[in-house]
């Protein structure tokens, strides 16, 4: 709790000043995605909610919003997983263990974990969507008896694109969660499902009133997954999603992340479906 107060004070007095974060561990997951573990200055814990994000700084290169993929229950470090897509992330990938970056945050609203206590949870992850969801999954596994049945549906393009390989194997092995994975295109060694993530949903056995559906993936995926969850009669406010937008400040000012009147960096990135279904045009993730 003291950590949180220190962070709030920092945010208030100098919201643009990043903290020092040292890379203590890193590894490539795929050709493009790399995992980083950081230690923050003064061993501070971020005390974030799963689903929140941080602004990562490399001086001279700028700043970018990145989802946190460790859980607040993981003390003493902070995990990020970053896809190499441009100048900034390319530079980040070139850093070595022991190198230092800046971190501001945590920002935004995370998954509504308190409201989710006691409910069954269906987690639907497409591609990089597993990154913020790993934070939630780790949180749930740490507080396992606070939640009902847990099912994880994970989809990616090919078996090579699978992130968190060792952890997903562990999820598969554990009895207290159901884990299902599908790939769009299989390779000869693949023994699992082949097909889009939406193909896994009709087979899920759930009680809609008691279930939260949590969906994170590329914009195109939301439309179809939300439609499937609605078919299962999960209420709008129990369908949870996280939206990706361009961001520069994290403080609800710079304007880049705005969907109509809403600043995603402050009101999101996590929303429930009832909050986004009335958007008239700028929310590509909306069903229908």
């Amino acid at each position, binding site marked *: 709790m003291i950590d949180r107060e220190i962070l709030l004070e920092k*945010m*208030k*007095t*100098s*919201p*643009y*000043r*990043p903290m*020092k974060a040292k890379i203590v561990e890193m590894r490539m997951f795929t050709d493009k995605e790399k995992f980083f573990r950081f230690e923050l200055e003064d061993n501070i814990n971020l005390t974030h909610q799963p689903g929140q994000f941080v602004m990562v700084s490399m*001086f*001279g*290169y*700028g*700043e*970018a919003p990145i989802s946190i993929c460790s859980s607040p229950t993981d003390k003493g470090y902070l995990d990020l997983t970053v896809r190499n*897509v*441009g100048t900034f*992330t390319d530079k980040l990938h070139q850093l070595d263990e022991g190198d*230092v970056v*800046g971190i501001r945050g945590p920002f935004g609203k995370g998954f509504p974990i308190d409201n989710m206590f006691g409910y069954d949870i269906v987690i639907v992850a497409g591609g990089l969507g597993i990154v913020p969801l790993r934070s939630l999954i780790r949180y749930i596994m740490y507080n396992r008896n606070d939640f009902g049945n847990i099912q994880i549906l994970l989809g990616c393009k090919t078996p090579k694109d699978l992130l968190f390989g060792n952890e997903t194997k562990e999820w598969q092995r554990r009895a207290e969660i159901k884990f299902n994975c599908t790939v769009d295109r299989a390779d000869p060694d693949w023994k699992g499902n082949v097909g889009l993530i939406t193909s896994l949903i009709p087979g899920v056995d759930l009680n809609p009133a008691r279930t939260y559906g949590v969906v994170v993936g*590329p*914009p195109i995926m939301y439309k179809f997954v939300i439609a499937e969850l609605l078919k299962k009669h999960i209420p709008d406010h129990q369908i949870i999603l996280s939206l*990706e*937008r*361009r961001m*520069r*400040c994290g*403080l*609800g*000012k*710079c*304007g*880049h*992340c*705005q*969907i*109509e*009147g809403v600043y995603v960096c402050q009101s999101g990135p996590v929303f429930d479906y009832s909050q986004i279904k009335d958007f*008239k*045009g*700028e*929310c*590509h993730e909306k069903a229908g």
Partner: protein
Amino acid sequence: MKYAVIKKDDLTKWLEHLKKKAKLYAPKKKENLFVFRPVKDVNDVCLEYIPTILPPKKYYFPQKEKLLRFSIQPFKTAKAISEFEEFILFAVHTCDIAGIQCMDVVFRDGPEDPNYLNRKEKMTIIGIECLKYCDDKANCTSMANHVPRGGYDLMMVDIGERYILHINSEKGERLVKGVAYIKEASEKDIAHLERVREEKKKIFKEELKAPLREVYEAFDENFHSKVWEDVGNRCVACGNCTAVCPTCYCFDVLDDMDLSLNEGLRYRIWNSCQMDDFAKVSGGEDFRKGRDLRQRHRYYRKFKYPVDKFNRYFCTGCGRCTRTCMAGISLIETVNSLLKENAAKENSIVP
């Protein structure tokens, strides 16, 4: 003292006095237009002017503002500005004062922005009331910004030989107190002010074809409208309209390294929602692709979203976006077309 008066002949003397008190910015002629500039020669100060090219926003929300001083090796960060300077904005129109009030609301809204608020604390605003229209591009009466509505320290109104000064704050009072040639206003002066205001009602008429509430409703109902297509077809996405707007505050963050390539400054610089990559994410998805969607966004950020969030219209009626538009897009015409379309739509609904 609530009202004071100063003879027009004494104005330059007072400007010299103000110049000594703090950094003084005032409107000045630049070719056929006007700009706010630091006052060097008080005789250059222009009191009758059409809205300046840029609003005084550049002084309280600078185009390029230092946020952070940093060094990479060792990792160090420090505040880039340790002290903010006292300054006076002189002869600000009521529309631009409304603009400052809008910005206040935005930057006070949590998480607060210390850079803006620190600057604002050091700012003194001396306004001037317009007694005639600057030109036909302004829609200040519809926005109810043609008359002073607070947000200033002193407000000057021309009452013939003299200016009457409304003292609206202690800060303002300090600038007139003890100045020999500024006297307390007499009842006659105040009566004169009332006459001027009455006279003004005959000149200033609502420029939009419907009251604001109906404008809001037209926006609420016509997110998908041909009006936006038309505007988008003409727009060249230059971003002039947002740069000159007193209530546009979107920005980008930019690092500038010095020659050592180890130390540098992080800035925030004005950015425009009209630029084509403004809402594009690194994965390639663009959430406002097309000039029509981006223009619509700009209009909604004046007439809809801030009304929902802050109960405040973010169009001040200054007319700058219309004056500066290279494609001749007029705010008054756009809003009126939207009103027209909305009326047509309502009429076509047969019970």
